[in-house]
């Protein structure tokens, strides 16, 4: 396959504990193409979060490279890349304001300045997640861990990313809301043919529901 048909390619990706320390992540080869639904499993501490952070280029990588549409990502191209390949933290901090303020914040960034913040779109997304429209006015300090995850998911979807890197996005949700969140992600995936996601999950049933391809992370290696 030609490189340009695989939007996200990680080659020889590696992360060390520190400059001369042990490898926490090593020899990772990963290709994520259009409509890919990939699940990653593995024990705690295996390096799943580290892999996602490295793919989002949130930390300096110690070996290898990440390419996007055939070009190595670095320097001034990083913010634009992160806008397309969006990493969701497992336990989002969000801040101390309201849900609406958190959702609006990215629209003030230089990268998203051309986008228009539309409150009704946010309200529709929350409705699909079974939340009332008053949810937007909620104080962040009153949100449960699961509600924070929903807020982070909606915040990401409002920016129309091409790839989502999901780090156990439903770990704090109840069973029925988990299904709603899964359905929302599937709908997002189906809206454009080139979209794809990487989903870290521990639950076998969820993995069967959301993925076509399974990868396993063990001791910093992906297989």
């Amino acid at each position, binding site marked *: 396959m030609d490189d340009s048909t695989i939007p996200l390619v990680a080659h020889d990706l590696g992360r060390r504990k*520190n400059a001369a320390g042990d490898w926490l992540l090593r020899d990772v080869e990963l290709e994520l193409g259009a409509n890919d639904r990939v699940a990653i499993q593995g024990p705690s501490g295996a390096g799943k979060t580290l892999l996602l952070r490295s793919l989002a*280029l*949130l930390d300096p990588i110690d070996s290898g490279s990440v390419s996007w549409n055939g070009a190595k990502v670095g320097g001034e191209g*990083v*913010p634009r890349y992160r806008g397309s390949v969006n990493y969701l933290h497992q336990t*989002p*901090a969000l801040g101390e304001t309201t849900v609406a303020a958190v959702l609006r*914040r990215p629209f003030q960034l230089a990268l*998203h300045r051309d986008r228009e913040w539309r409150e009704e779109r946010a309200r529709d997304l929350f409705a699909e997640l079974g939340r009332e429209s008053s949810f937007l006015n909620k104080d962040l300090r009153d949100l449960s861990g699961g509600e924070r995850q929903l807020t982070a998911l909606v915040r990401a979807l409002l920016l129309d990313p091409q790839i989502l890197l999901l780090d156990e996005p439903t770990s704090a949700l109840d069973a029925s809301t988990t299904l709603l969140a899964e359905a929302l992600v599937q709908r997002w995936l189906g809206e454009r043919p080139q979209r794809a996601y990487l989903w870290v999950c521990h639950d076998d049933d969820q993995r069967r529901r959301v993925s076509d391809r399974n990868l396993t992370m063990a001791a910093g290696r992906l297989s």
Partner: protein
Amino acid sequence: MEPYIELSYLKVAIAASLLLLNGAISIFLRLGLERRLMIAGIRTVIQLLLVGLVLEWVFAVDRWFLVVALLSLMSLVAGVVAVRRSERRFPGIWFNSIVSMWVSSWLITGVALFVIVDVEPWYSPQYAIPLLGMILGNTLNGISLGLDRLGEELVSRRSEVEELLALGARSWEAARRAVRQAVRVGMTPIVNSMMVVGIVSLPGMMTGQLLAGVDPAEAVKYQVVIMFLIASGTGLGTVAVVLLSYRRLFNSDHQFLYRLLSDSRSVDSGARQ
């Protein structure tokens, strides 16, 4: 001008005996402060005597290189002390602090010596040393508070900063809140003291001039100038140290290098933990 009353050493000793009152209170209330009070009192005497000796010598020799050497030493010490007072550390923090301290205070003192007070010769120790000293003392505060706050904001809000980066924020956009807070906190003491100057307290320099018999209107003019010099020096130094530190903690790939930040308490007193 009123005659200026010189103090005999006996009078200084009488002042010192007043400290015994504090010591007695400490013993009576079992505050356990008497030892520290005694050390502090002795340090005050010794440090100021030494400074007096050095100043007498520098004043007597009156050469530019000697004055510059002393000013350099003062700036260096101020830069080091500013870091020692802040709790977060990262590689390059000493360099950042010393450079910010040096550049801001020398620039402002330069304007004062060459333009505002227009001293002849420019290195005249009677002006150069106290002017720089006052600016350094306040800039030190601003730099250490700014450094401390920047580290604290970035550590406690690391997730928020990284979430913004993950959404496509440039590093400056993700760090701006922390940078702004740090500069604000660094500037707060001088802004506060400008707000209440003359109402709550008379500044030390003005008090000194009044005691020396200077006309109050003259003393006020000097004090206003000094306040503005101090404020601009503190502002420059704080902004410089915060921006230099931001440049160390974020790289050109818009990554937050949080692993560079460490806690000085665990560095300096690791054995205790």
